[in-house]
């Protein structure tokens, strides 16, 4: 056996990319197989999300009630922002494929401008995702967590969710935030909520038109169950603390797993977008320097385009499974 056969430039080796099995160059084929493995990674995550969703199918949060923000608009606007994000990403895919097309014609000027637009599109998408995360983490309405971990939201007489601050009794909160400086050990406590639990409960007792919405879905309407006043008060006896926004332990939207999977899957996808932008910038600089013009081949642009389209492809699935279904 010849141990060094891979280094030998005989017909059996890939020979620095000269040989092209399946009529694909070394780099392109490896990009395809990397994409295959990455697609399986993402499908593993999305399938795990599906498992949890089927497991908690009678209590899972409704996406339209969670992702309902739009920049500069107040009120309830489900779907529009994420649709806009999808368009940004699809459009940056279009400019990318136009760059590849221009590369086939050795048109350096067009490759440059289309790649530039692609990078801008990627940055826009990442910015939008940051804004989406900001809203998700910050929360807007607030909720109460019960002793056994269930989340209770508050609704007005029309069944619309309302913010805790809109009905809670106001006044100074007796608790002080625990900071690093005033403890025995150098750890700080959680941020104090805007209103305390007792203020929320007092406000609820004072206003008879309010009621609570629990996590359980009503099988008849497919919507969250709104309790009657008497039952709502029995639920509130069990309340433990005020919850604002979302973190990995608890969120005001409902099931903890929902927040965890949102952070993990959109975060992993966002990380792919970020690395795609960085690779795009590197290739863009090479285009500017004329590296591929001298090489008389823009194949590197094709390879990075494959990765970029894959990022778009994953988003199409994330969009469906997180926001539509």
């Amino acid at each position: 056996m010849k141990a060094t056969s891979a280094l030998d430039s005989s017909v059996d080796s890939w020979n620095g990319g000269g040989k092209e099995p399946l009529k694909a160059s070394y780099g392109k084929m490896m990009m395809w197989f990397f994409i295959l493995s990455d697609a399986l990674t993402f499908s593993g995550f999305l399938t795990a999300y599906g498992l949890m969703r089927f497991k908690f199918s009678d209590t899972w949060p409704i996406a339209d009630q969670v992702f309902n923000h739009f920049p500069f608009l107040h009120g309830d606007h489900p779907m529009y922002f994420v649709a806009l994000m999808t368009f940004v990403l699809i459009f940056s895919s279009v400019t990318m494929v136009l760059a590849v097309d221009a590369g086939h014609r050795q048109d350096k000027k067009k490759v440059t401008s289309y790649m530039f637009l692609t990078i801008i599109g990627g940055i826009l998408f990442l910015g939008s995702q940051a804004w989406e995360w900001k809203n998700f983490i910050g929360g807007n309405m607030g909720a109460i967590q019960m002793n056994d971990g269930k989340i209770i939201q508050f609704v007005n007489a029309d069944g619309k969710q309302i913010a805790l601050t809109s009905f809670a009794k106001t006044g100074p909160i007796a608790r002080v935030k625990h900071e690093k400086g005033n403890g025995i050990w150098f750890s700080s406590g959680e941020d104090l909520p805007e209103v305390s639990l007792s203020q929320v409960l007092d406000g609820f007792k004072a206003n008879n038109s309010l009621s609570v919405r629990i996590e359980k879905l009503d099988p008849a309407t497919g919507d969250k169950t709104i309790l009657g006043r008497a039952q709502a008060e029995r639920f509130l006896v069990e309340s433990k603390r005020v919850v604002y926004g979302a973190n990995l332990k608890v969120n005001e939207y409902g099931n903890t797993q929902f927040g965890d999977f949102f952070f993990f899957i959109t975060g992993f996808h966002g990380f792919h977008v970020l690395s795609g932008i960085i690779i795009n910038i590197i290739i863009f600089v090479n285009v500017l320097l004329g590296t591929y013009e001298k090489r008389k081949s823009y194949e590197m642009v094709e390879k990075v385009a494959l990765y970029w389209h894959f990022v778009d492809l994953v988003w199409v699935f994330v969009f469906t499974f997180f926001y539509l279904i």
Partner: protein
Amino acid sequence: MTTHAHESHTGRIWKVFGILSLITIIEVFFGIWKPSFLMSPWLSPFEGGFFAAIGNFILGIFIFIKPLNFFFIALTVVKAYYIVWFFMHMSEETKGLRRAVVWSSVFLIIYLTTLMLIEGSYIGDAISPYVKWDY
């Protein structure tokens, strides 16, 4: 390598962009509208022996999921097809490479998803009677 001349595909690219945008608009429209006739399964599960189980398996998409969700998944697969075939130029690769990538992913994903979703709904059915909703 690009030794032979390539004709421009610009027209086709814009056409694919149009199709992808249209599908996204349809998805958003239905996602907001949520028509009631698509919100609950069209068939109820068959009861009985072996053939009922086979029937539930074959017609599962009409029995166990909302038609609207099936519609969304179908549109997503169409979008994925257009992205892979025309943006990633999979249509221009050889049959061997195409099958190595597409078949591997499609069959593995369907297999994994089927098992996990069956398991998930089983766990859900098993634990939900023990969750307290009465205080």
